[in-house]
């Protein structure tokens, strides 16, 4: 029907959907923004940190901040205050060091990151009576222990997204495997499996996590594991099982059996790519709900162990008898609002691009 030119390029359904997605500008740019912000957040130790990027002292140059990159996977360069000629105890205070070197004028110098405060650095020596209001030094003020709010919010962003991505990934993995087995093999496995899931779905996840976390001291891995096992995978299982029930009756499955393909190859090579559409469309919304889950747990104090920088914990601090510490609430809320908005835009676009439903209607 259609006239095809010679440079006609073949594309898979997935490629076509990606192309459709790119056409939806709002979603596409949202994706670019959130991905680049997330990637940028891994460089946060070079942008928001109280350690110096570079210190030149007595003819040699040191790079203390590098060590914080990638969760300190690069060997930490810890320098005592006395190492750089400071009089104080403990780790060097590079902001002070910079002032000191400038005064001494001996050819030593310090390059500080763009925003020279760390999320867990207690600034009791510098601020009086925390929490303090936003000023030109601490753009979004400090919290009740005298830690810089901006630094905490930036690191909190990375932790929130990482947590949500991990949780989504593992829920999807578990849900897909279980759903695929139930849907493909059917029969007794399906009947008993589904009954078990229905009972399991009634476990009150949040309460359970609160009880467990009161004596477990949850880390990000533990929390992801708990939430995966007790919640995330169930809805994915329903989706995938339904898709498998439908796809396994299609003739391409019969064709694969007739050519002698194994169950494993039919389940994961043939059917799986055809069964993914609903859960791909669901993924951005799943990430959103995971971000909010972490936020609520942190808010209630059952989330990640302090002093992990977290949005929920900041809001909790701000919710005193009155809201005179408004910056503790507004800053993380605004951050969360923009994160969730961007991801919602992405979700909308993904749904439009992946859902082959006709949006025009007959009149």
């Amino acid at each position, binding site marked *: 029907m259609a006239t095809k030119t010679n440079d006609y390029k073949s594309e898979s359904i997935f490629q076509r959907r990606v192309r459709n997605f790119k056409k939806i500008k709002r979603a596409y740019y949202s994706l670019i923004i959130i991905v680049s912000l997330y990637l940028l957040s891994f460089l946060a130790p070079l942008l928001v940190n109280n350690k110096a990027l570079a210190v030149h002292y007595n003819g040699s140059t040191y790079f203390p901040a590098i060590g914080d990159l990638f969760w300190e996977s690069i060997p930490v360069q810890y320098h005592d205050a006395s190492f750089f000629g400071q009089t104080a105890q403990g780790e060097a205070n590079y902001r002070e060091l910079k002032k000191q070197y400038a005064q001494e004028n001996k050819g030593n110098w310090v390059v500080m990151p763009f925003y020279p405060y760390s999320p867990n650095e207690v600034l009791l020596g510098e601020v009086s009576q925390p929490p303090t209001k936003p000023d030109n030094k601490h753009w979004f003020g400090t919290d009740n222990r005298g830690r810089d709010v901006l630094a905490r919010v930036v690191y909190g962003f990375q932790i929130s997204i990482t947590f949500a991505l991990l949780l989504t990934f593992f829920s999807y993995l578990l849900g897909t495997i279980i759903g695929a087995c139930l849907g493909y093999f059917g029969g007794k496995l399906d009947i008993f499996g589904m009954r078990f899931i229905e009972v399991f779905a009634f476990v009150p996840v949040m309460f359970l996590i609160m009880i467990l976390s009161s004596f477990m001291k949850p880390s990000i891995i533990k929390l992801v594991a708990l939430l995966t096992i007790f919640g995330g995978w169930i809805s994915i299982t329903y989706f995938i099982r339904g898709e498998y029930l439908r796809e396994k009756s*299609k003739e*391409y499955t019969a064709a694969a059996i007739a050519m002698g393909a194994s169950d494993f190859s039919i389940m994961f090579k043939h059917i799986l790519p055809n069964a993914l559409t609903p859960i791909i469309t669901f993924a951005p919304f799943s990430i959103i709900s995971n971000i909010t889950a972490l936020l609520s747990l942190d808010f209630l104090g059952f989330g990640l162990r302090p002093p992990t920088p977290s949005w929920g914990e900041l809001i909790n601090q701000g919710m005193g008898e009155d809201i005179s510490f408004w910056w503790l609430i507004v800053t993380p809320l605004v951050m969360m609002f923009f994160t969730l908005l961007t991801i919602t835009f992405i979700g909308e676009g993904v749904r439009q691009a992946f859902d082959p439903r006709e949006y025009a209607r007959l009149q």
Partner: protein
Amino acid sequence: MKKELLLQVKNLKTYFHTESGLVKAVDDVSFDLYKGETLGIVGESGSGKSVSCLSAMRLIPMPPGEIAGGEIIYHDPEKGPIDLLKLSIDDMRKYRGNKISMIFQEPMTSLNPVFTCGYQVVEVIQLHQKVSAEEAKQRTLALFEEVKLPNPQRIFDAYPHQLSGGQKQRVMIAMAMACKPSILIADEPTTALDVTVQKTILELMNDLRHEVGMSVMFITHDLGVIAEVADRVLVMYKGKIVEQGSVLDIFNNPQHPYTKGLMACRPPLGKRLSKLPVVSDFMGFDAQGNMVTKINSVEDALKAVEISPEETSRRLMSLEQQAPILQVQNLKTYFPTEKNFFGKVTSWVKAVDDVSFDIKPGETLGLVGESGCGKTTLGRTILRLAPATEGKVIYDGKSIFDLDKQALKAMRRNMQIIFQDPYSSLNPRMTIGDAIIEPLKIHNILANDKQRLEKAADLLTTVSMSPDHLNRYPHEFSGGQRQRICIARALALEPKFIICDESVSALDVSVQAQVLNLLIELRQKYQFTYIFISHDLSVVKFMSDRMVVMNKGKIEEMGYADDVYNNPQQEYTKKLIAAIPEGRLEDIQKRMGRLGAGAN
């Protein structure tokens, strides 16, 4: 008969804006519809026949569709001529279902499954006419009576899934007739039905038309059906009308090579052919894209490929002398329908009920019967794609049901199946190349994927497709092309035995002929043994050496294809044969004569 103009389509242009550019589905089409006549519109899929009628109802999804120009003038007996394209949507609704109504191809999906059949007809009546609910019900029952539904009261209260396909199509017709429309558009109304049911529906439509005096636009890809119903015929090709005239003229003396191709490509019942003539035998395109006529007459084309009866009996003799390659012994496949409290099955559907036959190497056995007769289940049971309840299938001395997993996998190399639906039998996420090399990978044939892809390219050439299609995806091909790809995939393992399960039923007649020719060609080349399953007796007869007629899970009749056709023993077989629309000139003359007598 005085001809009174009812609908004029003038220079209609309907375009679709698709991802691959502008598609001119209907390109400057003009035709007239007169009062009381049946206008047959024929052409292959994509020729624009449906779109031109849907444009008249303004049922084109916009976007991507667009009626880019033209007029559709309806001559309202009260208000005079009206251009339907210029009406507002609200005004258009008064015409839809009321003056112009429509029946669709799929009775399964065009009735709403959550309402009773009666309610759906009552709704249409009440939508367009101010009558009480009771009166609407009485009218509905009368309509059901009129479309010859058995027990109208029961059908009135029945839900669509409780009816057979033919009954549903009758309900659809009743619904379309509810407001005594002056035009009825029938879009392939019998394509999804068995031939026997098709025959009764066509008779019904002919009767109703004479009683009510409405005009019918009948859309189909099958000239045989046209011969049974139409007064005048439009032949459409690539969005344009290539030929129009009275049904007698068209069948007597077709002018356009495309029409000739359509007429010749239906498998004829009387003769035995070595291959079917196809449209491309009659017409082609030169380098400039102009049409070239090749063969001029349908008779010449048929004569060139006819096989003499002596040749046929020689082939049958030589097949007969061999030991059978496949034996089916007392095969039963039952599906449980009811179980008691303890899970014991209390009631069965006997899909295949005690069937025995055997096939010689190189032979083609045709399996024919109406839908639900168990022919597909039989094919699948033989391949162990459906569980057998009892009986034996012996292939090459080995009992297939007793094979363990490894032996079964090895056995699958020899036995392949080609399915009915070319749209669902290819995995939409795999490229054609991956799909074809997959069986080779599973059975570890050839050393690496590079060699396998070379073999896949060869296979594509074998099924007359271009080898550079290897990297494309199924959705980029038409139905006929996909069926070729499925055949290539089945050939990859170099099987000896192939089951074709309604492999051409989803295709247009013109494409069907091409695929049938390919299957015959492959049989000659590789000495395949086929089981050819179809509901269409003419196709089965064309393909097979022997024919098995199935009914309700049992074998009704079995014998040489020509014998079964020429000398059917069972009533059921006779009924099947009588239902085939053959498109014979005498039949049309008889029908038109009857019509003329009726008019006088």
